[in-house]
């Protein structure tokens, strides 16, 4: 009897690591109660509130002309990894395991927005060298910390932090925590970018486990020439201080201009006191 108990205990001990892992497998749909205007209809031009951006990011965003998206090479771009989990999305997550050892090799995610696929390697492999290509989803490795899956991502392509021209750079990195509570999963991301952020951007989203398969946003994209008389090499942009939309957002919503421009200071609760002391925005001059 003692011998049998010992064998059972040994088997359980060996099996324990795999059995102890929280399962994240399934179809997950977001809940948009948090930051809904930013995530679904999309932000307004000039709205940089809540972003710890620096002056370089602000200039890039003020210079951004949405017509840039009509350029051939911009038309079929998709959202990058740090952006899309905060955007309109559903995703399917599944495990890849070694057939014999049942060791977890990777998590795979199918992101239904623009048919993206993502791999989170769990087998301890190193990140590629710095001269390797970058991708929209980047290169991710993960590890379990208790019941939290922590993921580190590098090699991310340049796109944007907010859908109104606030850029990220290819030097971006991201740490994520996937935390499951029953049928709910909280996703926390810490987005670092030494080029455009003065502090990491931290944001969270909640997802609900779907019992039915999610929808798809298929993306058989093919570019077209949208503007016939534009020089092939032109890049739409506003010269500094000449955007016709400058000041619109702040004036429309009565947000002090300084606050609308974002920055690390504006992301902290203490800023509310300063906010009350700032002047009301005036009507912008028509350009």
């Amino acid at each position: 009897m003692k011998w049998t108990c010992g064998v059972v205990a040994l088997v359980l001990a060996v099996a324990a690591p795999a059995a102890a892992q929280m399962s994240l497998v399934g179809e997950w749909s977001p809940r948009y109660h948090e930051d809904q205007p930013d995530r679904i209809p999309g932000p307004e031009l000039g709205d940089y509130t809540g972003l710890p951006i620096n002056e370089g990011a602000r200039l890039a965003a003020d210079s951004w002309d949405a017509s840039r998206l009509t350029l051939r090479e911009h038309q079929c771009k998709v959202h990058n990894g740090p952006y899309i989990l905060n955007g309109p999305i559903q995703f399917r997550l599944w495990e890849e395991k070694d057939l014999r050892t049942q060791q977890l090799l990777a998590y795979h995610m199918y992101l239904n927005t623009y048919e993206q696929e993502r791999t989170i390697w769990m087998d301890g492999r190193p990140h590629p060298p710095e001269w390797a290509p970058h991708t929209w989803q980047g290169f991710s490795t993960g590890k379990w910390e208790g019941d939290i899956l922590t993921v580190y991502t590098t090699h991310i392509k340049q796109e944007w932090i907010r859908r109104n021209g606030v850029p990220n750079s290819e030097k971006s990195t991201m740490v994520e925590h996937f935390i499951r509570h029953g049928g709910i999963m909280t996703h926390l991301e810490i987005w670092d970018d030494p080029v455009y952020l003065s502090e990491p951007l931290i944001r969270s989203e909640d997802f609900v486990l779907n019992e039915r398969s999610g929808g798809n946003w298929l993306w058989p994209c093919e570019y077209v020439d949208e503007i016939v008389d534009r020089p092939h090499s032109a890049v739409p942009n506003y010269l500094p201080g000449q955007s016709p939309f400058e000041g619109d957002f702040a004036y429309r919503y009565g947000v002090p201009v300084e606050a609308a421009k974002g920055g690390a200071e504006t992301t902290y609760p203490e800023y509310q006191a300063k906010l009350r002391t700032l002047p009301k925005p005036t009507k912008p001059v028509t350009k």
Partner: protein
Amino acid sequence: MTARHLVTVAVAVALGLAARVHTQAQTPAEISSLHVQGNVWLLVGAGGNVAVQTGDEGVLVVDTGLAQNADRLLAAIKKLSDKPIRWILNTHFHPDHTGGNETLSKSGNKTNGQPAEILSHENVLTRMSAPAAKRPTAAWPTDTYFPEEKDIFFNGEAVMLYHEPNAHTDGDSIVFFRRSDVVVAGDTFVTTSYPFIDQANGGSVQGELNALNRILDIAVPAHEQEGGTYVISGHGRICDEADVLEYRDMVTIVRDRIQDMVKRGLTLDQVKAAKPTLDYDRHYGSDTGFVTTAGFIEAVYKDLKNPQGKPRVR
């Protein structure tokens, strides 16, 4: 001093500066290789990036790094293929891209037994054979072209060379491996700094933009505007069309801003004070080293201030 002497001195100063600064480039302890796709590899650590195409017919090398790294580069190439080096293509004349020409050429051979062919645009030969350049004869291109394009067929694929007039220099070639679907940009495209517009040796900002737009025309991305044609930068990482696009956009936007300032009559100091590159400085900018932010702004300003003889918008 005659006009000819003045030109000679100017060329000597320019070449000397380029050689001095380029040879100061950091040299990592090891040359690393990374398979790009098809028959093409990237070798990093020799100076400028080096591309290697391997196959049954032998080895083709695009650019050869710094002279002091030639032996290590050769050893790294031998790890990829035991076939002889048949071709060396030079994207431009700078010593961090042509320094290993002699060693690599002599180590290989054409099918007739002569050292491996060194092919480039004719302006590369002109620059390297100038007395002031002090480059050994055996390092000079042995074969040159002067039209807009040149092509060869090697290891089962067409290898296209496109001359980009007055871009990084006046002798730039963009190399396209047509079956492997890999572009080698030379220093017309780098990911580590603002473009170095070597005006002393024929470079110009519009030529640089024309070169970047040429790469965009060649490159065809795969699904989601990712992958497909890969682009090896002169310095930095492997890219695809989306990456070149962001770089092209950056150079164009900076050009547009400085163009506006020139039209408004601003001096160079005023342009620098206006920080027309502010949104890109933490990525590409530098106050020290070979390619500085101030140097880039100055090059663009000078070109736009005096556009005579510069390439036109394509």
